[in-house]
């Protein structure tokens, strides 16, 4: 059998065997293998894609959460600020009002004290005048001759007369 002359029988068998191999492997090996490889690649691709998407979404979600939290904090601060202001204003107002009231009461008291004082003074003056007149009447009624007795009398009267 020569090296470089292809033998007829060998060509025949090789063709037959190769066609058979091509058919069997093509149908029962390559077709499922290539299909499964493709399927797996697609599924891996999809899984990676969806993971990426989920990551992106998580990022978005986290961002919006932070935003929300920040907003809430800001709002709380604003509310607190407002409340503080309101409180301060109310306190201030109350203080002013109280001060006014107090001074008004004091004024009133002062005025009434003054009035009372004036009334008392007037009454005192009147009583003094009345008493003086009564004294004088008594003196005049008693003996005015004797100076000594006069004196005694005055003294007696004075004793009797008490500044009430």
């Amino acid at each position, binding site marked *: *059998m020569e*090296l470089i002359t292809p*033998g007829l029988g060998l060509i025949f068998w090789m063709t037959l065997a190769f066609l058979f*191999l091509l058919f069997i492997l093509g149908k029962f*090996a390559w077709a*499922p293998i290539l299909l*499964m490889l493709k*399927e*797996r690649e697609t599924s891996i691709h999809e899984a990676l894609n969806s993971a990426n998407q989920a990551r992106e979404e998580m990022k978005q979600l986290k961002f919006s959460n932070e935003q929300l939290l920040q907003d809430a904090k800001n709002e709380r601060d604003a509310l607190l600020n407002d409340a503080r202001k309101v409180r301060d204003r109310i306190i201030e107002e109350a203080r002013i009002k109280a001060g006014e009231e107090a001074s008004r009461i004091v004024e009133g008291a002062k005025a009434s004290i003054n009035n009372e004082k004036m009334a008392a003074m007037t009454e005192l003056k009147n009583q003094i005048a009345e008493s003086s007149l009564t004294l004088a009447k008594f003196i005049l009624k008693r003996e005015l001759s004797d100076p000594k007795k006069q004196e005694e009398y005055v003294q007696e009267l004075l004793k009797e007369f008490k500044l009430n």
Partner: protein
Amino acid sequence: MYASGQDHTMLVQAHDSVFAQSEKNEGKAEGKFNAGEMIMEHVVDNHEWHVAEIGSLHLTIPLPIILLYDGKLYTFCSSRFHNETHSYDGFKLESEGPHKGKIVRVEENGSAVYDFSITKIVFAILLSSFLLILIFVSVARAYTRNRNKAPSGLQSMLEPLIIFIRDDIAKSSIGEKKYEKFMPFLLTIFFFIFFNNLFGLIPFFPGGANVTGNIAVTLVMAVFTFIITTINGNKHYWVDIINTPGVPWWLKFPVPLMPVVEIIGIITKPFVLMIRLFANITAGHIIVLGFISLIFIFGEMNAAIGYGVSVFSVAFMIFMNLLELLVAFIQAYVFTLLSALYFGLATIEPEHH
């Protein structure tokens, strides 16, 4: 090729001739070790599979002989030729001369003997085909079983090769759109060549048959590539062959030089595929066998020189075998890649400028 006394596994035969000085010379005097003959015997096809020779015991696997002669089919076992005349049923296995190893009619009457025997290489092809089917069908099962899961076992060993052929050979040469149609052929041819190349490197049965280094085998594969290229050739492909673009008109018009060159090119492409694989694998086998022969050539001069040379020979043989491992892959890759490129050329769509 077959002669009961001189059909040998090289090592044992050489030992006989070196140390025992040919005790078993029957009919033909055999003195000298013939390196060329021994190498050729191992590289070409054979009607039986010689497994080993222990002393004078030949371990051979007889293979069926199927002959078509004069419109009649003759089938018998190759061991029938084991007799003095090497003939049976009017057929003779030539043991010498230019047709050594061929089966001829004893009394020739002009009509040829068509030999469809299951020879050593046919047997190796059937064996490797069977193994390939076994392996890849089981891998395909693994794929269906591990649907969308990571590959395991044999599957994970072969998957990189399959993906390599798909992505780096088919997709890049043929294109995303059309590669799928050619995948079964490309995968089959790659694994057939790769597998048989590796099997050819195993020095004993069931390896050792020079399948991919046989021109008939490479011829058939190249013809397959040629047929697939031709029947898939689109309009653009044929127009480019008849009217090659970018070539001056005077190379085409009065004398159709370029069309002729292009048409020859259609044939030379698969022809080169055939020669390349055949020559690479056969050359590798011949070199390894040559190193073995060196031991016995020197051994015939002097046993001590033979032993001395064997050290270097074995070292070179190991080196060559490692190189052949690389060549086994590269040649399978090159055959597949070039086939894919030819398919790509045949199916490419014209570019729109």
